[in-house]
């Protein structure tokens, strides 16, 4: 009697706990409004997490990029990079992002609901190493051009004329290999219209007209000293030349050749800028304290930044020495916008013009600058993005399958075991509640394989009851009374139930340990499901029997 009361209290407590875990609660999320600004919004939701495959979103795994430079202690570098990535994601505007270290050399970033892959990657992966460098005023590149042409020729870097022309589809493509090419090359030299377009910068000089080397033919003097233009179709070729060790060795000492971010359209053709700058930066982004996006009527979108006092002093000193020179703002080895001329010494405040980019891009740049540079370059090891429509579809289909599975199981149980089957089905309702509550309580996410695991464990959940019921039947067959048959049935079925479920939990635990993402979700759901099924099948069904026995005292038959 009192035993029964304690059991009922136990069930009530468990149910209350489950309902508490699943009760809808408020949460604050950051949402990007139509104006591109982040706002905090309060939302009411059931605290059950959906995995990325169900709600849509992006899963990115990053590893240290050692293609340029070997990193000695990767684990330590990843730890430092993790902080930076975390800072950046905080301002990114997705709710409940996951940023964690996986293994010793990888960072996992999960952005629920994010669909713009390029934007996410640019925020996470940009190293954001900011440098300020003075552009070359000594025509250093012109002086080494003959040597570069020779190197390109000797190392046979210039592609065969046919392929280049085909690939670029540009009339007047590079006058190529060893001066043998005789294609319509006149169109390639900066013609008058182009020069007119460039004249507005007033510093434009005549183009470099040299003997038609493979390298020098591809580049033209830009609008200012140290600036050169490369036609869009030739960018890859020039980039290949520049990355060649032979060419790099022949470049002017203490200078660097960097691509610009902007492209210019001159006479209907797109040109990309190439800059020759001092290798030594006058200052780097390490002194930066703040960066904010803004728009200016003259320059369009800009990012304004502030430096601390030490940086400000240094910046003022250095820029004071270079009045009248051009200063390239270099971010991750790319020159941002056009290098502005230094009018007078600059102190703690400065700005980066974004060229044609929109405010969102300025916002993202400000974000990565504020969060600081990544200590090591990172590269994408794995990326998965799932559109919200597919996730929605998966939820709908998963739900449908679950409901049908439940109906089928209920039918089989009730038809075969009658009243006892009904008791088992009632316990199944508790089972569903407990499983979901366990998931919510432990912060496990429901994934598509998770739903499959859940559906499956509904089938397995009744297994314990089937075992018990079959035992009770056997005991009844031996002529035992209803009460003893129930007691004995539970007692004898127990070892088998425990052994079989523990072995499944062990397998699921291994899966959890070695799985990632969706598979982990499956393992968690399976473990939660098995635990809940043990409680519901053994404890709750037993209590139902006790209740039933109490109401029908001295029952001679059992509907089983």
């Amino acid at each position: 009697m009192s035993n029964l009361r304690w059991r009922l209290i136990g069930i009530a407590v468990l149910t209350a706990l489950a309902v508490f875990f699943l009760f809808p609660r408020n949460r604050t999320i950051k949402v990007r409004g139509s104006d591109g600004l982040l706002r905090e919004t309060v939302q009411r939701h059931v605290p059950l997490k959906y995995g990325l495959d169900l709600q849509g979103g992006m899963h990115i795994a990053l590893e240290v990029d050692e293609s340029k430079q070997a990193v000695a202690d990767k684990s330590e570098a990843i730890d430092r990079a993790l902080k930076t990535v975390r800072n950046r994601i905080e301002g990114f505007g997705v709710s409940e992002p996951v940023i964690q270290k996986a293994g010793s050399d990888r960072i996992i970033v999960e952005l629920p609901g994010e669909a713009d892959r390029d934007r996410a990657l640019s925020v996470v992966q940009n190293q954001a190493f900011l440098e300020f460098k003075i552009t070359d005023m000594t025509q250093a590149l012109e002086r080494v051009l003959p040597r570069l042409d020779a190197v390109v020729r000797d190392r046979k870097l210039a592609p065969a004329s046919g392929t280049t022309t085909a690939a670029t589809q540009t009339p007047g493509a590079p006058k190529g290999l060893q001066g043998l090419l005789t294609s319509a090359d006149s169109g390639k030299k900066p013609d008058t219209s182009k020069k007119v377009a460039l004249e507005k910068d007033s510093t434009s000089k005549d183009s470099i007209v040299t003997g038609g080397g493979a390298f020098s033919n591809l580049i033209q003097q830009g609008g200012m000293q140290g600036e050169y233009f490369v036609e869009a179709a030739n960018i890859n070729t020039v980039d290949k030349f520049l990355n060649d060790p032979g060419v790099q060795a022949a470049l002017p000492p203490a200078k660097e050749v960097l691509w610009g971010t902007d492209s210019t359209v001159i006479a209907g053709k797109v040109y990309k800028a190439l800059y020759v700058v001092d290798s030594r930066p006058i200052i780097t982004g390490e002194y930066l304290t703040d960066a904010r996006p803004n728009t200016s009527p003259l320059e369009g979108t800009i990012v304004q930044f502030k430096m601390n006092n030490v940086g400000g002093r240094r910046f003022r000193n250095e820029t004071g020495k270079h009045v009248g020179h051009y200063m390239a703002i270099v971010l991750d080895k790319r020159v941002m916008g056009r290098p502005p001329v230094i009018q007078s010494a600059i102190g703690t405040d400065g700005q980066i013009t974004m060229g044609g980019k929109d405010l969102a891009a300025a916002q993202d740049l400000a974000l990565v600058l504020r969060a600081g540079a990544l200590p090591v370059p990172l590269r994408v090891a794995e990326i998965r993005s799932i559109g919200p429509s597919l996730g929605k579809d998966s939820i709908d289909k998963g739900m449908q399958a679950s409901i049908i599975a439940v109906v089928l199981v209920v039918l089989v149980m009730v038809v075969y075991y009658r009243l006892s089957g009904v008791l088992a089905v009632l316990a199944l309702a508790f089972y569903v509640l407990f499983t979901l509550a366990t998931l919510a309580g432990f912060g496990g996410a429901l994934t598509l394989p998770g739903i499959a695991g859940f559906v499956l464990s509904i089938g397995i959940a009744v297994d314990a009851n089937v075992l018990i019921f079959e035992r009770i039947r056997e005991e009844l067959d031996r002529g035992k009374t209803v009460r003893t048959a129930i007691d004995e049935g539970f007692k004898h079925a127990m070892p088998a139930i425990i052994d079989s479920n523990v072995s499944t939990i062990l397998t699921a635990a291994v899966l959890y340990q070695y799985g990632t993402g969706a598979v982990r979700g499956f393992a968690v759901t399976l473990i939660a499901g098995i635990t809940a099924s043990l409680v519901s099948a053994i404890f709750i069904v037993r209590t139902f029997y006790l209740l039933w026995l109490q109401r029908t005292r001295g029952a001679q038959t059992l509907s089983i």
Partner: protein
Amino acid sequence: MLRILHDTRYDFIKWWKHMAILTIAWILVGVAIAAQRTMTGGKAVNYSIEFTGGTLMQLKFAQPPQIDDIRATVAQAGYGHAEIQQFGSPTEYTVRAPGATAAAGDSTSKQIERALKTRYSPTGVQVVRSEFVGPRVGAELRRNAVIAILISFVVTLIYLAIRFEWRFGLAAVVATAHDIFTTLAFIMMMHLEVSLTVVAAILTVIGYSLNDTIIIFDRVRENLKKQRKESLRDVMNRSINETLPRSVMTHATTLAATIALLIFAGEVIRPFSWVMAFGIFTGTFSSIYVATALLLYIERKWPRSGEQKGTARALAEERRRDRGAAQNAVVAR
């Protein structure tokens, strides 16, 4: 009360040879299919990009497109080797392109998307899912999957050795290995895509099959404690028969759930559902025909010492009967 297969007396052990031939033949068919695929220049196992590395895109078209048209468009974007497959409905397709580096992988999906959006207007095609896996991650996941299966083996063996006794554990693990091989043969036959989810399904099948074997072995353990005048073989048969209603009921419910998954849960999870459905079948088969026959073999090969009275006595009973049978044979001659 409604009863099925109540109080049956089937001799399951009798069929063990036939069943062994059947199951070995099944596995051999799987091996033959794999060999044939390799010979004709194909891939024996259809690994997902999680294991091979590369780019996968799932596309949804507004109108049902021609597959050759998609192929041509993707080839135009520079991915002539990409595999294109219909995915469930006639408007959905997947594109799988092998890709080497991260930078290239990033642009792979971008390039294909751009080409497709040019061919079918920007609203005519939609990328609903895209995945890129670098080659290192692929190798790592492959290794982890193998480690996971091996560790779950060892862990269950240890658990069974603690709870039962090593002979039971060995029989259960060998029966489970059998399930893995038959399931792999099934994957070959159906040419299912092997992804992480499918590996999870295989591990679940392992758990499920063990579950089943344990329940029969639990009965064997219990029946051995009772001092009946029965041979070990009869104890096995009796145990299988006694647990038969439970086996059938549990498989009815689990199979019902799995079939619901197979039919209604959609294309993404379908390989998983197939493996589960087959796994439930083979798990039951192996617990009844493989595990018990193996246990019988092991018990005879490595007989127990005196302290386990039940088994020793059952074995003695068996030897006595065998002798009797031999004598009968002599008499009959």
